[in-house]
């Protein structure tokens, strides 16, 4: 058996041994839980097992199933950019000039139906084609708040509250401010993940040249790239969903919003739940709308505003496009914005 290098061993461990072990372990837990549910004689144990396994499964699958449609749309948009747009066109639209660049990013976030998660795939494809970083950051952050597809679904699902419009405003302002902050960086490539950096004369460009003029071939290439992008990002969503679902399961039930306590409790529980539940921008609103217990306004505001800016799944996906430093600043700024929103609304309500 050939000796594997250190990176090959790490790759084998991350790509084969760890997922297979986790799948095997989860399969055992699932079968055991089903057996206890069916044959268990101890009512307390049976109820506890049923509760924990159900919470874990729902927590995990909700994140996964809500992310997948938008990842697929984002993969398709990224693939179209890859095969149908030239570097010059992308550089012209997503200009390095601040205001036109940010306006283009904001508009793309609104009109392209890529939503949360999908906008990250699209941003990476555009960055690789030479789009300016501030423009792409604005697009990535504004899409969950302003995108036309989730907006249409929400407006058609029976009305929305004032907090919904507040979150749209905060989401848009947050995206623009963060984009402007990043524009002060003299070497923006330091804030971009290595995989997302613009490269001249790439293999895909050569391929595009070779197949140009053959539309059938190009459509097929779009489909292949879509599949490839989708399959590259989906495992990261799964890892984030797994971690978030485990944390959701071990979180005390009393910490899950809507908590009816003081201001700190409301802000803390709804902020933590927004990060851990990692729902889509649509899922956040529907969770509040469909809840049997009414959510206090502060909890709603923190949950909905933080939910569109940041969650466990988004952090993992942002790390595929931006550097750790940029994601850290974004995390701090997003949490600060949500807490501030909660405090302002809470203090206003006390007067």
């Amino acid at each position, binding site marked *: 058996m050939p000796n594997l290098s250190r*990176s090959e061993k*790490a790759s084998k461990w*991350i*790509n*084969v041994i760890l*997922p*297979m072990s*986790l*799948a095997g372990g*989860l*399969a055992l*837990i*699932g*079968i055991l*839980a*089903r057996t206890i*549910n069916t044959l268990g004689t101890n009512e307390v144990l049976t109820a506890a097992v049923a509760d924990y*396994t*159900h919470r874990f*499964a*729902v927590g*995990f*699958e*909700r994140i*996964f*199933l*809500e992310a*997948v*449609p938008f990842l*697929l749309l984002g993969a398709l948009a990224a693939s179209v950019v890859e095969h149908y747009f030239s570097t010059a066109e992308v550089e012209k639209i997503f200009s390095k000039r601040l205001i036109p660049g940010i306006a283009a990013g904001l508009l793309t976030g609104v009109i392209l139906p890529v939503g949360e998660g999908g906008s990250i795939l699209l941003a990476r494809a555009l960055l690789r084609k030479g789009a300016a970083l501030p423009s792409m950051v604005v697009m990535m952050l504004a899409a969950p708040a302003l995108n036309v597809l989730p907006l249409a*679904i929400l407006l058609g699902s029976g009305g929305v509250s004032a907090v919904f419009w507040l979150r749209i405003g905060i989401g848009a302002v947050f995206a623009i401010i963060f984009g402007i902050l990043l524009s002060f960086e003299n070497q923006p490539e330091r804030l971009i993940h*290595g*995989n997302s*950096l613009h490269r001249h004369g*790439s*293999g*895909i460009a050569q*391929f595009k040249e070779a197949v140009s003029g053959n539309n059938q*071939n190009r459509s*097929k*290439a779009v*489909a*292949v*790239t879509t*599949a*490839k992008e*989708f*399959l590259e990002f*989906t*495992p*990261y969503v*799964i*890892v984030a*969903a*797994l971690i978030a679902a485990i944390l959701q399961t071990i979180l005390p039930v009393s910490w899950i919003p809507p908590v009816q306590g003081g201001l700190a409790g409301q802000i803390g529980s709804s902020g933590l739940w927004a990060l851990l539940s990692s729902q889509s921008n*649509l*899922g956040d609103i*529907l*969770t509040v709308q*469909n809840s049997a217990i009414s959510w206090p306004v502060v909890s709603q505001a923190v949950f909905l505003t933080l939910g569109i800016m940041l969650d466990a799944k988004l952090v993992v996906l942002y790390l595929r496009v931006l550097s750790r430093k940029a994601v850290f600043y974004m995390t701090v700024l997003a949490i600060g914005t949500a807490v501030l929103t909660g405090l302002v609304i809470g203090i206003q309500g006390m007067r």
Partner: protein
Amino acid sequence: MENKAPLKFSALALAILGLSLLQWLWDGKVADYTHPQLIFLLFPVGLICIILAQVLLSAAGKDRKTSSPPLTDAGEDLDRAPGKMDLGLLWLALPLVIGFLFP
């Protein structure tokens, strides 16, 4: 000789994912997991996954039969920064295991 196994494995992963999503829609299991208003988004996703799997399979076959430019974006892979590791497709087994085996 170029190894087409990863492409075929990707096609298999997509097909299984698409069929599982459609199965969960068919037996109503997705209603346990997500909001009723979002369920309709999963039907096109399931179908598209199956279509993409078919395209990947045919691309793998075409690359083998002809000397035309490969549809597998091999060049794009070369552009990846060295030392950066992507997660493998076996991670896709997790949502399936949880969806099918957990109560």
